[in-house]
């Protein structure tokens, strides 16, 4: 089970300054991710995005990425699964070579 991020001063600040990532999913046809920092991967079946706190994996079929505004990404296609990986966990797993 993923470790829940602790409530911290920086976490609260990000919330107040709207620096958190916002994910809006419409049925299984599209998802809008705001405050996206980087696109890591973009294939037909998997899209990986990096936000300030999480790495977001979106699995599905015929996935396509569009960006119409700064730091916002829209994923279109048939979405089957959305996975959020905490960046701290990602660092840990990278350190031990699991990912």
């Amino acid at each position, binding site marked *: 089970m993923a470790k829940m991020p602790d409530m911290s001063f920086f976490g609260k600040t990000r919330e107040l300054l709207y620096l958190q990532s916002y994910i809006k999913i419409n049925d299984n046809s599209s998802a809008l991710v705001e405050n996206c920092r980087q696109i890591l991967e973009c294939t*037909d079946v998997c899209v990986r995005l990096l936000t300030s706190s999480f790495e977001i994996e979106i699995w599905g079929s015929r996935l396509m990425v569009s960006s119409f505004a700064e730091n916002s990404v829209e994923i279109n296609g048939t979405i089957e699964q959305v996975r959020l990986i905490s960046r701290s966990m990602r660092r840990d797993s990278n350190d031990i070579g699991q990912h």
Partner: protein
Amino acid sequence: MTLGSIEYLVTGTDYARFYSGITKDKLVFRDMHEEHESISVTVPVGYCKRFETHCKDSCCAFQKSGSNGIPKICRDIIKRPGLLAGALLTVMLMAYYSNVILRIDIDTDDPAVRDKISDVLAEDGVKAGAYLPDIDLVLEERSLKQKIDDAAWIGITRTGSGIAVDIIKTEEADKGITIGMPCHLVACEDGVIEEVELLDGQLLKCIGSGVTKGDIVVSGKMISESSEWTDKGETVTSKTRYVRSLGKVKGTFTRTEEFRQLYDTEIITLTGNHSTLRYLNIFSAEIPLFLKIPDGNFSTAHEEKHYPEINGYMLPFGMTEIELDETDTRSQLLTEDEAFSEAEKLAYNYENNFLKNYEILDRECIKSSDADGVTLTVTYTLYGDLCRESDFFIPRYILPDEENPQEKNVQDSENN
């Protein structure tokens, strides 16, 4: 994406750098996905240059695989030069026809006034095909007002690619009502009075009496006298009353006219050449389908308008065809008989135009000829109006100031 977009296929080895840069550069893109070891992405036209620069910086090769919107339309148009030429021609025609006169609307029912206005406009160069910005409508209005007496007011308005001439005709005031001045009925012909219908005025000549031109037949000056006998004798009081003589005085009179026809004359003949002018009518616009009006003199032989109809309703577009016959003016030497025949035609036209209001009782013709031509002297015996109204007062307001008499009374100009 409003102006259109271009589809790219990006190939390279380091997609991570490409993805990273595309976010950092804040590029706008659409439908990005990996397929067959390449990335397909659609980029708006405004971001294309930045995108290509980014690809080069990321060491990725790119190629354009398609386009949408304006780039696609431009590419399609370039492939079809006819469309481009048609559009260009349309623009040029629109620019041309929006600056030339296509039609002239003259707002009058009187064909004579319409013809006069058309002639004056044509003399001044205002006709179909004239360049509108070169025409000063104010000056043209003044010109029309000066040259056309039948018009009390004339206004010209530009209506799209045409001009509209509005006219208010001069209406002659009703003499009996607006002038209201006393008048005589004066003989205008030498003749014999046969019939009198008198409504007002004093008849000075009896039925059966002869009159010469200028005689007062009905007087508007009515003098009534009354006498009274007193111790001092007879006192005569005269009272003068001025009226407007109203009535009809008919009689028989003669009138002699000469009709001259020269042997050497000019006639208008048809050359046998025909020409057809076609116009495309769209709503009120009349677009000429010819480049130039043929040179020469032409008379209209036939005019046809073809408007398609649907269920009896005429559609607002169609064609107008005007067939013209070319005419030529030639000099011709007439024989004596032909000259007399032409003189007879002149007499016939005179009778139709000037003797319509009279009954022709008798007509005597005397033919004579000389070296240049023939003369037909016709003596008409006519029955009709013998008199015309003749005002005998000059209204004070029409006299110039310097000519005004010392006395401001109405001047009696009666000279009888």
